[in-house]
């Protein structure tokens, strides 16, 4: 190389070296895999494994649990988390129907509903939630009531949990098929329904057999034979198609940090079959014209019988 040639390239080489250096400054290594929803956030719904235990969102999840769960999900997903704890199954029902949640912690009725959604907008089960219990749908009347059988409930004032609850909405309506009711009323918790029953504001209410004994002033008039399966953590289809295994792995490893009331079971896939049976109930009731608060209602519509009526797990 001639001296003249070298000298002409001198400033050019120095400039190139500096430009490459500058380019290097602007780059940062990134090996993180994030699991975000289509909006660039991870929208997480939280209803919990049990329904109708409290009358507010705060009863579903404490402030401390919200903070801890939000942080854990943020670390697991590497994405900004929008955690929405809800008390009303109906609100969850709307969110699931509109695919507004990417991940959701659901009780069994809503988990069945999530499976019910169309294939491209539906959800897949990831992990079971909650403890196995003697959860069954029941209908209670006051002990002194002269109503003895289902047929006697014609013209009654019925108390239910909001739409979306299995033991508090779908199964009671399913079991009252064919009856005309004077009115239907809603409450967020079984305790509120029980209080209204005792006050005489309602004639019959939905109840869950897993709850503590309500006392001798009320009695069971309908006892559904189906044992209720546990709830489930569900993931929306777009995220199922994405690489969600690191997210799930971290949740499994951090199961001890999740709220104990959640009953998260690490490393186990939920049993889909019992929930599939529930889908029949949910699908049937969802196809009916549904009752409005305080309005008369005839429980009428297509009703498919469940095969192997009995244990749902």
């Amino acid at each position, binding site marked *: 190389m001639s*001296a*003249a040639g*070298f*000298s*002409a390239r*001198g*400033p*050019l080489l*120095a*400039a190139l070296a*500096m*430009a490459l250096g*500058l*380019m290097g*400054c*602007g780059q*940062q290594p990134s090996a993180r895999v994030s699991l975000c929803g*289509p*909006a*660039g*956030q991870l929208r997480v719904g939280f209803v919990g494994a049990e329904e109708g235990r*409290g*009358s*507010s*969102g*705060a*009863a*579903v*999840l404490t*402030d401390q649990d*919200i*903070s801890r769960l*939000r*942080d854990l999900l*943020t*670390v697991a997903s*590497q*994405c*900004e988390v*929008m*955690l*929405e*704890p*809800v*008390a*009303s199954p*109906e*609100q969850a029902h*709307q969110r699931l129907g509109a695919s507004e949640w990417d991940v959701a912690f659901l009780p069994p009725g809503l988990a069945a509903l999530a499976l019910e959604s169309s294939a491209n907008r539906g959800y897949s089960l990831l992990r079971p939630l909650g403890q196995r219990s003697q959860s069954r749908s029941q209908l209670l009347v006051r002990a002194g009531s002269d109503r003895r059988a289902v047929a006697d409930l014609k013209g009654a004032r019925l108390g239910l949990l*909001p739409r979306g609850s299995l033991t508090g909405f779908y199964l009671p309506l399913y079991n009252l098929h064919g009856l005309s009711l004077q009115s239907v009323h*809603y*409450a*967020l918790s079984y305790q509120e329904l029980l209080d209204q029953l005792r006050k005489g504001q309602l004639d019959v209410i939905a109840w869950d057999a897993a709850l503590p004994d309500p006392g001798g002033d009320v009695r069971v008039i309908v006892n559904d034979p189906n044992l209720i399966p546990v709830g489930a953590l569900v993931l929306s289809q777009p995220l199922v198609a994405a690489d969600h295994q690191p997210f799930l792995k971290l949740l499994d490893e951090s199961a001890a940090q999740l709220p104990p009331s959640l009953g998260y079971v690490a490393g186990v896939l939920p049993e889909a079959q019992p929930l599939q049976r529930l889908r029949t109930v949910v699908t049937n009731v969802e196809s009916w014209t549904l009752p*409005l*608060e*305080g*309005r008369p209602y005839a429980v009428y519509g297509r009703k498919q019988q469940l095969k192997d009526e009995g244990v749902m797990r």
Partner: protein
Amino acid sequence: MKFPVLQGWMVGSGQRPLRKQLAITLSAIFALSILVAVVLLNQLFGLQARDLIDQRSSFFMDAMLAVREYTSKDVNPIVAPLNEGPGGFRPESVPSYSAQTVFAYLKAKPDYREYSYREAALNPTNLRDKADSFETGVIERFRSDPSLTTLAGEKSTPLGSMHFVARPIKITKESCLVCHSTPDRAPASQLLTYGDSSGFGWKLNEIVGAQIVTVPQKAVFEAKDRSLFTTALLFVIAFVAVGLITNGVLNQLILRPMREISRKAEEASVTPATVSFDERNRSDEIGLLARSFERMKQSLAISMQMLKDRQGRS
């Protein structure tokens, strides 16, 4: 303090061709200039990137305030009566819901994906809006100092450091208290959706929450680095152009005539009569040098002629 070696290497000590000495000197000056400029611009662009993000955040918050206003004035009077009926609660009547929904649509666009908007409250109706410990700190600062209108700074999250801008949310309309004073004033559908223990007890003119826009610090740094890189690249291109032009001019004005004069001087040392330093007509230093060589050539020719004459006489 003197550094003879460095000075000799940069300015030249006559050990290398002039062109190479100049190239080295220019490269060193340009590199040093770019380095100093990059260091200073790094600071300047950092401030500018932060300002830009703050401005955009303020715009978002103003836009969201406008959405809140529209919902409060125009949508709520139409939708709120429906919430008194037997159907479910319609959150479209709630300003906060509208603002956050509109922002979610905005965030779906790639240009705004980095931005996040929250309307965090100490005691929200929807627990999705529950302030975390950091947000609680921000809201408490606004509550303790009502004259404070904006807060900006950095916050640490599990995803890394974030830049935030916050403004207080103050209850200025009596209509807000229908849903947020006591459960007995709230629509039944609201109670059935959110329960009766959250989002109540608010008072007129009370700061209940904060609008908070957050952007990852990484995005701030990336914006700054992009500006810095572009500017530095322009510097480099400009300096390279200057270097090449200087090199060309040096070659044309000095080096080529000097090489020519040098060649003629060598020839003149043998046959001075056949050489002519035509550059002597130039009025610059090259002309001066050529005139000197021309005089030297003539002196040499005379001396050589005298020497020949003397040898002829003897």
